[in-house]
């Protein structure tokens, strides 16, 4: 992992400043969850203790207030993840329509188990709970993009596309909105 100075880019700092204005004076802690998303997108897809301390200083709160939030919510990664975090839903509706087979196919194809990262650092495979895509099950999320009505063939196409792009996907990406 490349060494980076922990500082947001100017436009992100500007955005955070604007965000603080969404709340009453003295309630800037409200911006914590959105700012953690920005931090994760900006600093290699995860939140190191140093990044969390930096966020605390920006919002003028104690570091522990950031740690306890970051460790509570499932979208914040407290360990490094691959450039493409594949989050496969497997709750009821997705399970009914073959989510376990999709997970098995991905494990097989990528040569890793759920929770692991490929040696090249490109893919991390994660299983998650309901993402609200039950009518288009099975599905996975990569960055902000929902990939729906999955089949083994669609998964193969997606993996090939992501390999070719070789870029980090984040929750903040602009995505195409799928038809239902």
């Amino acid at each position: 992992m490349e060494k980076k100075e922990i500082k947001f880019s100017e436009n992100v700092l500007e955005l955070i400043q604007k965000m603080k204005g969404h709340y009453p004076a003295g309630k800037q802690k409200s911006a914590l969850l959105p700012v953690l998303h920005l931090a994760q997108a900006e600093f290699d897809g995860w939140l190191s203790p140093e990044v969390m301390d930096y966020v605390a200083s920006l919002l003028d709160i104690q570091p522990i207030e950031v740690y306890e939030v970051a460790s509570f919510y499932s979208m914040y990664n407290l360990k490094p993840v691959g450039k493409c975090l594949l989050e496969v839903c497997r709750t009821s509706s997705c399970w009914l329509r073959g989510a376990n087979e999709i997970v098995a196919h991905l494990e097989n194809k990528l040569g890793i188990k759920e929770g692991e990262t490929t040696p090249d650092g490109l893919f991390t495979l994660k299983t998650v709970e309901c993402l609200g895509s039950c009518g288009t099950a099975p599905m996975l999320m990569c960055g902000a993009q929902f990939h729906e009505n999955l089949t083994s063939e669609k998964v193969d196409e997606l993996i090939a596309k992501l390999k070719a792009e070789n870029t980090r996907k984040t929750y903040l990406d602009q995505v195409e909105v799928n038809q239902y």
Partner: protein
Amino acid sequence: MGKKLLLANDHIPGIQSYEVYRSNGGYQSVEKALKNLKPEDIVEEVKKSGLRGRGGAGFPTGMKWSFLAKPEGVPRYLVCNADESEPGTFKDRYLMSRIPHLLVEGMITSSYALGANTSYIYIRGEYYYVAQILEKAIAEAYQNGWLGQNILGTGYHLDLYVQVGGGAYICGEETALLESLEGKRGNPRIKPPFPAIAGLYGCPTVVNNVETIAAVVPIVNEGGDSYAAIGIGKSTGTKLISASGHIKKPGVYEIEMGITVEEFIYSDEYCGGILNDKKLKAVVAGGSSVPILPADKILTTPTGEKRLMSYESLAEGGFASGTMLGSGGFIVMDENTSIVENLYTFTRFYHHESCGQCSPCREGTAWMEKLLHKILDGHGTLADVDLLWEIQSKIEGNTICPLGDAAAWPVASAIRHFRAEFESFVGSSTAKHAIH
């Protein structure tokens, strides 16, 4: 063809954009409200409409609004709950991404009715792309004078913000949502005080679901009585149903409340029947939390009448033979479905999503998941099924928020209606399932 109030214009190309939305009658409720109605008139119309909270609890919206405290000099807030996370539910995502301006319009009209000058839409983090769609719609509303200072020259001002969560089902519980909006862990608060008295930043706050707020638009446009004329009994108006599982046409359907469950499952207008023409085995009618019912009980009430898609009819028979409309997350299972394995996915979900504040829920959900895993693996005993029953009964009613009940009910109902299936795993050497 049933009447549509929220998705009536869903088929219109470009309805996502401000121009198309506006030219199809959009923002009329704001004009009518701000120019012709007093805030209390709107609350009255919402009361008359009989609208009930569409997030799952079904509490009368007009009554919730009338509880809002109005101390002098203290801001009031309207917060939209867009933390849609109940397994089987995806209607709010559909509505927000297809017709974002309907929610923005509903937020403005409702904020005016409640006297709020700052409002928030709290949306689950996994819907980040939907948040971007809403941000765009809000920017368009500001540009066209529907938000900001002195709206329509009336002196009313409103700022509307989208707040993105971090991935936690519990934040759909309204006090956990408010904690999260304040930048904290999503631990539900002890009530009272209710948010109507002390909510966001300790100020009076109303929290309403996306669909509830959207429904305020047709209620203001056409009047509460006209809304109440649709539906059946105390289930007035239309409801968005998220249909998924083993059906031919999964998707979001706006129904007039009161159609039969049978029509909803088998008619081509809705689910289109069971996938591959298999037999229906069971339905979870209102999102993962509500009791699962076997085919005969979901289609007919205990008195032998056809069951209807309404709050009352679905609940008929109590928990012995009925269920709940809940969020309208309608999950259909065919004859080959393992009820126990499906339950395992639910229980794993609740274990994952328990905030950990109350011991019965924190420990109980973990224990139930472990027991179900053991049973599915073929190592369970008959006593384990009894133990499972025992654990769920000790969670129910013993937690600060309803997540405990929500975790208990699916377990209780699965055992109640499908006990033999649990027992069939006991001592079975072939029981090994592909569990992840």
